[in-house]
């Protein structure tokens, strides 16, 4: 008997795993081992392992030295390990789901980069993983316009679209080489999340939307860090002055406090 393998290790991969579970009976899940994460570097299971446990799914840890001889094909989404060349030679049918239309926005942050560019056109590419990052031949692409382009919503909408289209995707069909100019997306540093008075209003809004999963974006206000989850157009709200206008903050996490409405925070200061 052969199995469809799923490789994933963070929250963003779970909706895709869910779609596979709904469509196949024979699935095996591979994830990464627990590691030190977060403040205090506590050892935590990754979300995929937790999801598998709560849904009674078998889940094993990845190693490049393993040979999964019962693999029909594999699907990889947000997986925190590197496949070695030898592993890919032994397992030639592993597909990655990349959240842009390749070769546009190769790299680790296509969704966030699209939002920072002010675009609402998103998409995803299912391609075969080869030795070079995000360069493999393509099985399937789909592009969608997502007007509410907070990254959390974009991730959700893209996974929903994958679910809708899943039945029409044939993982044994022929592949096409990527066509067009390569553009890149990059890893971010914490400095990228910072909104300063030198930012324009549009840049600041794009940062808030882009980083609501990875970040969030933040400002420094009275020497304290205030994380910003949402902005609003309601001018009765807590404001932050930028180069070309006022940013109205909606939901924030002030330093040392819980997430709250910005106006509640302001009332507390008065």
């Amino acid at each position, binding site marked *: 008997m052969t199995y469809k393998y799923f490789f994933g290790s963070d929250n963003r991969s779970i909706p895709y795993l869910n779609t596979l579970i709904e469509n196949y009976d024979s699935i095996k899940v591979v994830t990464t081992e627990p590691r030190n994460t977060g403040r205090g*570097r506590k050892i935590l299971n990754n979300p995929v392992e937790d999801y598998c446990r709560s849904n009674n799914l078998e889940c094993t840890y990845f190693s490049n030295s393993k040979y999964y001889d019962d693999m029909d094909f594999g699907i990889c989404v947000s997986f925190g390990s590197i496949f070695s060349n030898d592993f890919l030679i032994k397992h030639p049918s592993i597909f990655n789901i990349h959240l842009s239309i390749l070769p546009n926005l190769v790299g680790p942050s296509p969704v966030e980069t699209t939002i920072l560019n002010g675009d609402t056109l998103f998409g995803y590419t299912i391609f075969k993983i080869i030795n070079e990052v995000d360069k493999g031949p393509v099985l399937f692409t789909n592009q969608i316009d997502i007007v509410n382009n907070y990254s959390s919503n974009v991730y959700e909408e893209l996974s929903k679209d994958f679910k809708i289209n899943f039945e029409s995707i044939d993982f044994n069909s022929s592949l096409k080489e990527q066509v067009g100019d390569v553009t890149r997306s990059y*890893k971010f*540093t914490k400095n990228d999340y910072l909104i300063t008075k030198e930012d324009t209003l549009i840049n600041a809004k794009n940062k808030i939307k882009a980083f609501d999963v990875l970040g969030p974006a933040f400002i420094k206000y009275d020497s304290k860090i205030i994380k910003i989850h949402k902005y609003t157009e309601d001018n009765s709200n807590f404001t932050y002055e930028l180069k070309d206008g006022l940013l109205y903050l909606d939901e924030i996490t002030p330093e040392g406090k819980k997430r709250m409405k910005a106006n509640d925070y302001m009332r507390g200061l008065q």
Partner: protein
Amino acid sequence: MKISASIQASNIYNLLDELENYKDSFDQLHVDITDGNFTDNISLPVAIIEYIKTNTEYVVDTHLMLNNNELFTSKAFEFGSDIVTVHCETTSPELFSSLVNKHNNVGIGILPSTDINVLSDYIDNAHSVLLLTVNPGFSNQSKAVNLLDRITEFKNTYPNYSNLLIVDGGVKNEELQTLRDLKVDIAVQGGAIFAK
């Protein structure tokens, strides 16, 4: 193949700006930790890993070139390192087994002057193998062994090895395609990135 940028070759006092300036040249970060004992200089404090992991999203592979591998492997993982490489010249096979049992993603490194057969006592447990092609401790050096010869020697000696292969030391941009062709998984570059 991924490119890992050795931050020892960067302007470390301005690290985040350096990473931003050269971000199109690498995929992850390589941190050399030396103790002035196994090597002839002292490089970065191990706490730099925590700084990187707190301020960036990069995968960090840490290369320990020192004598007290037990202590510093634990510290490197506590600070958030994703991969830690220790050297076969300073780590007994027994200690290596114990490190592998205690932590995920522990790799073994080998100096250019060490017989490749020494790895046979480690390779079955190793998450990765790092072939160092320069003498340890300083960045921007010329190679002590021929890159192609060393990789070929490794591949011929361990044809069934399937975990990650890392090549570190004086890797030039014009050599990257050769490394890809040789199925290297991670190439470490320092001067080729930050000394542009």
